[in-house]
């Protein structure tokens, strides 16, 4: 039974050929795993591209009335059409997108996404991405990371009772390996208004490569470079990638093969972006409690951020160059070096304390 009340938030989860991992992901979006929200607050739009391994609709129904399941026949290899199909089903004014159904999330992702939307209608909420295991799963052959190991480890962690324990067996995704106080390449669980998704035209279906290629990077940067967007990062939350033999998250015996695939993704990305592509460089606003499980990552992120800030200051580079309004810290620090550097006009107008 679908609730008649219009939810605040619709979360789209795309699933293809990974029923076990997807059920974990969907469980991580269910109640009471998610805290401080009710079933009326959100809905989960599960869009599955048919494969030989589909979800069990019965198991899904057991997760709660806020889950809506759509099984589609897809002739292509990209999730882009499924994302657009999902967007058309959404009833909420806020949208969440988990384009890789193998990414389970921590327990306050929904609560904080809704809080951020209350602070700003232009909120773009970024949940930092992690991989389960000691190292990025693209090295799974070297580290011996297998599905069986992961199943056993998840069981041992007892993550269903406390999703923050996932941090205990996680590492940064390699696309964001310097932590969340830096520019980030991609976001695997993001939230923003339905209006803003419409402004970028949904998912660009020119990303027709396996897994959508770099569509995820593209969507994040498109949304993040909307001029009035406010970027929020949840330092105490995470999306955790489960091993499923994904397109770029598994190690192939021939590494050149993986590199060639990535190269083709990059080429397509730059074609569609219309030039060289780089990580979104906007100052993140942090939001949310940081549990002790996540604190080691906060420590590391702030350490690496300090290093980056120092390097950029010495090199006279702006910290957040995608932030049009951002012209403050670096400029001032540089102007104090006293070497004749001329700060930009915006800083020359800096207010002086009246006498």
């Amino acid at each position, binding site marked *: 039974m679908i609730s008649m009340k219009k939810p605040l938030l619709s979360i789209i989860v795309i699933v293809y050929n990974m029923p076990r991992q997807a059920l974990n992901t969907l469980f991580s979006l269910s109640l009471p795993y998610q*805290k401080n929200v009710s079933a009326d607050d959100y809905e989960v739009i599960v869009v599955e591209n048919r494969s030989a391994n589909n979800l069990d609709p019965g198991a899904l129904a057991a997760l709660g009335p806020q889950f809506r399941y759509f099984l589609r026949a897809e002739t292509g290899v990209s999730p882009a059409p499924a994302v657009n199909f999902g967007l058309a089903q959404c009833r909420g004014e806020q949208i969440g997108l988990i384009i890789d159904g193998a990414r389970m999330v921590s327990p306050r992702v929904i609560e904080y996404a809704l809080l951020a939307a209350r602070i700003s209608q232009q909120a773009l909420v970024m949940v930092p991405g992690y991989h389960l295991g000691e190292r990025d799963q693209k090295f799974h052959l070297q580290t011996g990371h297998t599905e069986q190991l992961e199943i056993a480890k998840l069981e041992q962690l007892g993550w269903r009772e406390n999703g923050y324990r996932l941090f205990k067996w996680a590492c940064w995704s390699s696309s964001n390996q310097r932590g969340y106080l830096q520019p980030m390449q991609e976001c695997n669980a993001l939230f923003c208004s339905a209006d803003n998704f419409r402004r970028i035209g949904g998912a660009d279906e020119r990303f027709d490569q396996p897994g959508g290629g770099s569509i995820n990077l593209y969507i994040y940067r498109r949304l993040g470079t909307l001029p009035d967007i406010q970027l929020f990062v949840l330092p105490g939350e995470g999306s955790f990638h489960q091993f499923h033999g994904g397109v770029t998250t598994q190690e192939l015996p021939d590494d050149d093969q993986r590199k060639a695939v990535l190269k083709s993704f990059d080429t397509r990305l730059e074609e569609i972006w219309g030039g060289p592509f780089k990580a979104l460089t906007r100052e993140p606003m942090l939001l*949310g*409690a940081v549990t002790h499980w996540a604190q080691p990552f906060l420590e590391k992120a702030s350490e690496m951020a300090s290093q980056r800030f120092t390097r950029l200051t010495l090199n006279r580079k702006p910290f957040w160059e995608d932030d049009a309004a951002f012209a403050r810290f670096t400029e*001032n620090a540089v102007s104090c070096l006293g070497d004749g550097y001329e700060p930009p006009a915006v800083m020359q107008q800096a207010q002086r304390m009246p006498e």
Partner: protein
Amino acid sequence: MTRKHGDHPAKQGEHPAHDELEKQPTPKNIPNAPTSVMFFDPAMPVVPVAPAGYLQGNRLRLSIVVMVYKMPEQAKKTLYSLSAAYQRGVSEEDYEVIVVENPSSNMLGRVDAEKWGNNFRYIAYPETKPTPVNAMNFGATQALGSMVAVMIDGARMVSPGIVNYIIAAERLHPNAIVAVPGYHLGDKVQQEAMLEGYDEAYEQTLLDKICWPEDGYRLFEISCLSGTSHSGWLKPLGESNVLAMPRHIWDKLGGYDPGFTETGGGQCNLDLHKRAVELEETVLVTLIGEGSFHQFHGGITTGTKGKERLDIMQSHFNQYAELRGGPYRPPLKRAILFGAMPDCAAKFARHSASTIMKNRKEIPRDWP
């Protein structure tokens, strides 16, 4: 990743809390001294549901009440740091500043209190006792804003996002209590630094070094965490020197407790912080990228030495214990952290996290 997570198994019988107390600038072994709390309550707060429409209306969003007593030069810097010229992303129409001054031999006066903008108001409060409590409570009755922020020590200048973030925090929740970590100018807390010659002149050289007030965030470059926040903001904060709360919560608490009659109000600010945070319906929001920065001014606990300081602190602690039935203990409600991280404040984020990690073995149980 070189760090392995979770490799700090709990060791039975160890008491890191003891080490922590050793480092506290508060003298040891004083009866009724505040106790340190090493970690947040294991239970995450359940955020009470927000009623719809509480933000509607054109009411002024924020009133900041600032206490000034016998420190006009420091107060001028503080008030400038609260002005719309210094605060980012807000204008004079968004908030007001109410300056309350108790009589002294060295007054700030109306002209110097109100020259920072049309949103500044001055109240000379005819106090005869040494406590700021009555003046602050009176100042708050004059406040027009839906949020009331109190700054009981006018010597604390602030970073440039405070006003903007407090207004934003009100959108987070109708019962948001906003706390700001406290810092001291200088590389160690001023009650210690002054023993080595730290004074107002030296402080001015520090401020000149960062070209204050050009970029107020650079205050983090020349500051250290103050005593009540010394282990960082991932632990429960003992107090906040910019403490904002909705008007209805202020009214419910009755503001500062007039029972605090000691010099400077004794521990009235800690007490208000605790009572506000411990209300069941409130949500604690800590602004991690902002700060209040204490300027040296010969304050009651930050500018006195030796036995004099000990005696003063002892009577503050005793009064708290008398009023509340025991020594002060910070409220345990876990904070929602909020705010961007300025470059020069990142070191404090690291300090906060590593302090907790060092003490991790002490975390008593697993919690959801």
